[in-house]
């Protein structure tokens, strides 16, 4: 704000001390990411060195005790769960925001928005628990065994829906009102206004929301661990049990030793890599480059 320079031009020695203290705090806060990556790499290095990167994709199976480290079933598990839940949550979340802004009477819009906020505050272990005791038996009744990719997709969709709904809500609120007045003056009906004017104007906010929810879907651990059955296999149908990268870490970290433990850190690195790519994409979009 008014701090136009980095150096306080102040003659007070306390100011210089304060500045150094604050710089120290910021340096620690900023260094945590580096520390995390450094420790992940350090722990993963032994297995990367004498097993190599390729074998994480070409080994016959994931049997760390016998020295087989194929991560692809878990990668597919993470991918399927992510794509499925994003496909469900995105339209529902955007329609929710549209509902709040353009369809609901004010008496409904306010409580509905509050409800989405509450949904965002419910912890993942509670979602997982509910999925385990309600959803899984329900799916099991339709098509055994019950713990499945489908259960994971449904739970993840509910969990990430508030993220996209709140982001979409914020970006719809930012659409300049003169656009809407223009549309009203042209006599455009509601959906035509939305499709032709509001969505294009809010595009970058909506895309950022999608990226944020994708990040949540990739990183979610507990809920998906509780409802997916955790069998290491590439799921071939929605009703197959499967395991994600995150669940794999949570399940095996307790007893993993040596190369096995290192292999879990490799999957941690893969997760951080995915998130870093998503953050970079969000950054790119928020600078408006999606239009060009």
């Amino acid at each position, binding site marked *: *704000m008014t701090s136009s320079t980095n150096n306080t031009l102040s003659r007070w020695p306390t100011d210089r001390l304060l500045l150094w203290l604050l710089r120290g705090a910021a340096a620690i806060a900023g260094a945590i*990411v580096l520390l995390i990556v450094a420790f992940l790499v350090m722990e993963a290095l032994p297995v990367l060195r004498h097993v190599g990167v390729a074998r994480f994709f070409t080994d016959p199976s994931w049997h760390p005790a016998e020295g087989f480290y194929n991560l692809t079933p878990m990668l597919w598990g993470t991918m399927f769960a992510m794509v499925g839940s994003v496909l469900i949550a995105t339209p*529902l979340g955007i329609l929710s925001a549209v509902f709040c802004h353009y369809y609901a009477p004010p008496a409904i819009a306010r409580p509905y928005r509050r*409800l989405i906020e509450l949904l965002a505050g419910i912890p993942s272990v509670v979602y997982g*628990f509910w999925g385990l005791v309600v959803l899984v038996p329900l799916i099991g009744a339709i098509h055994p065994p019950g713990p499945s990719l489908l259960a994971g997709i449904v739970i993840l969709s509910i969990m990430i829906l508030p993220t996209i709904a709140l982001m979409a809500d914020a970006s719809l609120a930012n659409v300049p009102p003169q656009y809407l007045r223009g549309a009203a003056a042209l006599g455009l009906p509601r959906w035509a206004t939305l499709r032709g004017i509001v969505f294009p104007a809010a595009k970058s906010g909506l895309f950022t929301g999608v990226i944020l929810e994708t990040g949540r879907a990739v990183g*979610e651990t507990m809920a998906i661990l509780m409802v997916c059955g955790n069998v290491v296999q590439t799921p071939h149908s929605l009703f197959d049990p499967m395991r994600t990268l995150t669940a794999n870490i949570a399940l095996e970290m307790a007893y993993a030793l040596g190369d096995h433990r290192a292999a879990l850190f490799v999957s941690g690195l893969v997760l951080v890599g995915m998130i870093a790519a998503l953050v970079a994409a969000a950054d790119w979009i928020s600078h408006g480059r999606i239009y060009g």
Partner: protein
Amino acid sequence: MGKARGRHRGGREGLATTFVWSAAVLVTATFCWLLGDILWHGLSHLSWTFLTAPPRNAGREGGIGPILVSTALILGVCLGVAVPLGVGTAVLLAEFTTDASLFGRLTRRSLDVLSGVPSIVFGLFGNVFFCKTLGLGFSILSGGLTLACMVLPILIRSTEEGFRAVPAGYRLSAAALGLSRTTTLFHLLLPAAVPGLLVGLVLGVGRAIAETAALIFTSGYVDRMPESLLDSGRSLSIHIFDLSMNVSGGDTNAYASALVLVVVLLAINRTASWLAEHWLHRRIVTV
């Protein structure tokens, strides 16, 4: 032609309206189902004894007394570390760096990435760094420190917003009076930025209480009453996870614990939005 198009468009409008309303109804129904289920099964089991008694028989019977204590201790450690660090960083970013400065940009970017890091990765990191490298073992201290890393980005972001919401006139007048920037900070800016700090604090507490994955390998599973910060302690969320996954017949107590967790979190969430809406607004307008 015009008529046909009009009818076509009317159909599309009707369809869109149907879709929008059904999406809203679907979301509301799911929410009510989830909350109703937990209320229905949890409420019958909730009592004062449940909140204070120690768990017995692997948690199937008894209460959650020691678990609440562990949760509070983990939270205390987390905030004790995260608040000074977070406020310091926020002050630096909001008051002492410009948007163009390299240090500020790097710090902000690194915090952006940090806020996206999956919680299980924090668990891995906490396990290696706090439990192994620093030798803290599976303990409340390790768990709290791991959570502190996790809530820092949220805390910093809203505290920074709190500082940015303070009118520039404050700083200019203080500078005109020849006050040192330290005095300005502690006597003018910090009090005025308290609402933003509180919002961040409440959001951070919410995130920390809800966390499970980062705690399994840092604070551990032990459900006894902790005697020191170096003891392992089980948080409420881990208790729910353990009861539902590893203990058969633990569902009743898991429901009651889930209800406690949800009620606490909803209370925290309401406080955060109330603070953000009322206090933050009023404070900045009237002061």
